[in-house]
C-alpha cells in the first residue's frame, strides 16, 4: 500500500499527522517549560531554561508555518455524519483559535525578548543569532508583551484541554474515528466517500 502523504476527504495523510503530533507535543512542552522556568529559584537554571524555551519556540514557529502551509494546501477530512450541529460549528472555531495561538504565541515571545532592555541575544540551540523584531525597547514594552504572552498561554492551556477532552470523548464515548484517524491514515472514516 502506498504511503498516504496528502489528506483525502476522509483521512489525514502522514505529513498532517506528523505535523499535528510534533507541534502538539512541542506546544504542550513549551507551556510546561514556560510555567516551570518562571518559578525556578536558581538564577542559573532559570536563565538556561529560558534560553531553551526560546530555542524550542523558534523550532515550533518554523513547524507551525510549515503546518499552516500544509493545511492550506490540503483538504480537511470531513467530520463523521453523526456529528451534532453544535460541534460542527464549534470544532472549526476551536481549531481556528488553536492555529491562531500557535502562530501568535511564538511571535509575542519573540517580541517580548526583542523589547527587553536586557538585550540578551537569542541563539536557537546555540546555532546562530536570531535577530530581534523591530519593536520599541523599554521596561514598559517588555512588561506589556510579557502580559500578552502569558495570558495567551493561559488561553492556550484551556483550549488544548478542551481539544484533548473532545478527542477522548470521541474515542471513548462516541466511539468514532476522530482520534484514530489522526494517528494513522490506514484508519478511515466510516463514511469515507470517494477520494
Amino acid at each position, binding site marked *: 500500500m502506498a504511503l498516504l502523504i496528502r489528506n483525502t476527504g476522509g483521512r489525514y495523510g502522514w505529513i498532517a499527522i506528523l505535523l499535528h503530533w510534533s507541534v502538539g507535543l512541542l506546544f504542550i512542552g513549551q507551556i510546561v517549560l514556560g510555567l516551570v522556568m518562571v518559578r525556578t529559584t536558581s*538564577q542559573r537554571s532559570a536563565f*538556561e531554561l529560558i534560553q531553551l524555551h526560546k530555542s524550542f519556540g523558534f523550532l515550533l514557529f518554523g513547524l507551525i508555518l510549515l503546518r499552516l502551509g500544509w493545511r492550506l494546501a490540503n483538504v480537511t477530512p470531513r467530520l463523521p455524519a453523526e456529528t451534532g450541529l453544535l460541534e460542527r460549528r464549534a470544532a472549526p472555531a476551536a481549531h481556528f483559535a488553536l492555529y491562531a495561538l500557535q502562530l501568535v504565541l511564538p511571535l509575542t515571545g519573540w517580541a517580548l525578548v526583542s523589547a527587553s532592555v536586557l538585550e540578551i*541575544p537569542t*541563539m536557537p540551540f546555540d546555532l546562530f543569532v536570531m535577530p530581534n523584531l523591530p519593536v520599541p525597547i523599554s521596561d514598559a514594552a517588555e512588561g506589556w508583551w510579557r502580559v500578552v504572552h502569558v495570558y495567551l498561554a493561559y488561553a492556550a492551556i484551556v483550549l488544548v484541554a478542551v481539544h484533548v477532552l473532545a478527542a477522548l470523548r470521541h474515542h471513548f464515548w462516541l466511539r468514532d474515528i476522530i482520534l484514530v484517524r489522526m494517528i494513522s491514515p490506514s484508519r478511515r472514516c466510516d463514511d469515507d466517500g470517494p477520494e
Partner: protein
Amino acid sequence: MLSRSLVIATLAAAVVAGPSALAAASLSAAGGRYTISQAGSSIRFSIGKAGGGSLDGAFARFTGNIRVDNANADRSEVNITIMPASVGTGQGRIDAFLRSDAVFDAANDPEIRFRSTNVRRTGETTATITGNLTARGKTSPEKFQAELKSFAGGTITFRVTGKVLRSRYGMDVGTPIYSNVVEFDMTLSGRRG
C-alpha cells in the same frame, strides 16, 4: 643654516625622547608602597555578546596595594581584592543575576582576589603582571598589562588591562551567547603609604 638645522634636530630629539624620559624620571622616584584608593580608580569589564555589542560593567568596591621596587622591578607587587556584590551594569536585573549563585555567588564568596607573583618591565612605563586570581574557590594564573599613567604628589596611577576566561572560575553561564572572555580595563590609583 647650520644652526637652524641643529635647533630642529634638537627639538625633534626632545619630542621623541621627551615622554619616556619624563616617565623614567617619574618611575625612578616612585619606589614605595601605595594603597589603592577607590577615588580615582575604576575596575571595568566588558563581555562580548553574540551578534555584536557587549555587556559592560564595573565593580564599585575594591581594595588593594601596589609596591613599586625601583632597584629590582621584578620585586614589585600588586594585590587587589574586589567585592563582587558591588558589581554594576546599569541594569538591576543583570546585577542581581551576576551577584547570584549563577555567577559570583557574592553571599557565599564575598571576595575576588588577585595576588601578583611576578612583575616584568616591558618598557619605560609598561610592565606585565602575572599572578593568581581567586574567585569562587578556584585559583588560576592570569596575566595583565600595566602602564604608568601618572605619578605626582605621592599618587601613582596605572592603567591595567587583561583578559580572563570566566569558565576557569565556574562562571561559564550564558556561553556562547555571552563570550567566555572577560576583558578588564582598570585604572588603579594609589596613594603612598
